[in-house]
């Protein structure tokens, strides 16, 4: 397997959840990658505030209105939608509730990276609380996602809560609770160990694994692993996510551990 060289890992905070400690994620990546330079860059829009209205328009135009209808290219946003996005860029609101097209969002974020830094040798990871989805041709609808891996990679803290499905039993009981008018917080409490929720103190630990998926995307071209106990496992259920990121006896499978080890060895030989 060809392993590419990584020179730098740059982490950006695009309004991610407050409970995410990006400095801790950076420290973890430094430990794993040793000689690669890992830096936290903060808000990626900070250097582009004079173009905030342009970016606001672009973000407003990639909003998904209906999950069963693919968005039209260059759809015309409403004034209020553009205004909301500009407030969000300028840090005047952190509210969320909009669903974006994931690939288009990745493209807007790519414009915030200097051209000379758009390279496979530089891992750019944007942490955001924006929820995004991608269109699936087979069932003609959008599906919420946790992450898009590319240059840059985008990881959604809200996506980690919303995209992987909760246990089936939770959905069945939720319906009953709603019919009976019972408190949903009580139900969430019963299932606390089974899924990641808003304000969850486990989020930073979970994000470390997703950041490593972005790293492996650059290293070997594939962010994922088939091993359910490896942090690179592409979880579609919350229980799978919790097992891979928090409960497994090992962090990475033998194959991916070997790659990390060989990387350290090769780097120390240079």
């Amino acid at each position, binding site marked *: 397997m060809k392993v590419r060289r990584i020179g730098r890992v740059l982490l950006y905070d695009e309004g991610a959840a407050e409970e995410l400690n990006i400095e801790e994620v950076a420290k973890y990546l430094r430990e794993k990658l040793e000689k690669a330079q890992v830096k936290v860059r903060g808000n990626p829009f900070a250097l582009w505030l004079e173009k905030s209205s342009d970016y606001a328009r672009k973000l407003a135009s990639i909003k998904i209105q209906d999950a069963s209808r693919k968005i039209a290219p260059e759809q015309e946003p409403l004034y209020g939608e553009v205004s909301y996005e500009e407030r969000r860029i300028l840090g005047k609101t952190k509210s969320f509730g909009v669903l974006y097209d994931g690939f288009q969002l990745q493209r807007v974020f790519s414009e915030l990276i200097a051209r000379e830094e758009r390279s496979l040798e530089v891992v750019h990871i944007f942490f955001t609380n924006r929820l995004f989805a991608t269109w699936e041709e087979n069932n003609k609808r959008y599906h919420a996602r*946790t992450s898009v891996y590319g240059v840059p990679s985008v990881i959604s803290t809200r996506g980690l809560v919303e995209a992987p499905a909760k246990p089936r039993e939770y959905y069945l009981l939720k319906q009953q609770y709603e019919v009976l008018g019972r408190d949903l917080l009580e139900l969430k409490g019963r299932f606390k160990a089974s899924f990641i929720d808003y304000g969850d103190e486990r989020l930073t630990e979970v994000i470390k694994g997703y950041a490593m*998926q972005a790293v492996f995307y650059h290293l070997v071209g594939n962010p994922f692993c088939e091993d359910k106990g490896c942090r690179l496992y592409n979880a579609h259920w919350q229980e799978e996510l919790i097992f891979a990121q928090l409960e497994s006896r090992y962090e990475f499978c033998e194959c991916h551990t070997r790659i990390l080890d060989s990387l350290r060895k090769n780097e120390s030989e240079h």
Partner: protein
Amino acid sequence: MKVNIEEIEVKEDKTIKELMDELQLSTAPILLELSGRIFYPDAIKDRRLKRGDKVTLIPLITGG
């Protein structure tokens, strides 16, 4: 749709658009690396490639 990042060698002169059509990747979410720089194919669709040029196909991959 390709799954992994992969480098290919161009077999004959053609445009980026022709290459994407040939690989049936015209509508795929993908980036290209040419001479160390990364592009979205539609942004450089008329750029001409020469026989022997190396192009890295970088598919965007979703998780969750």
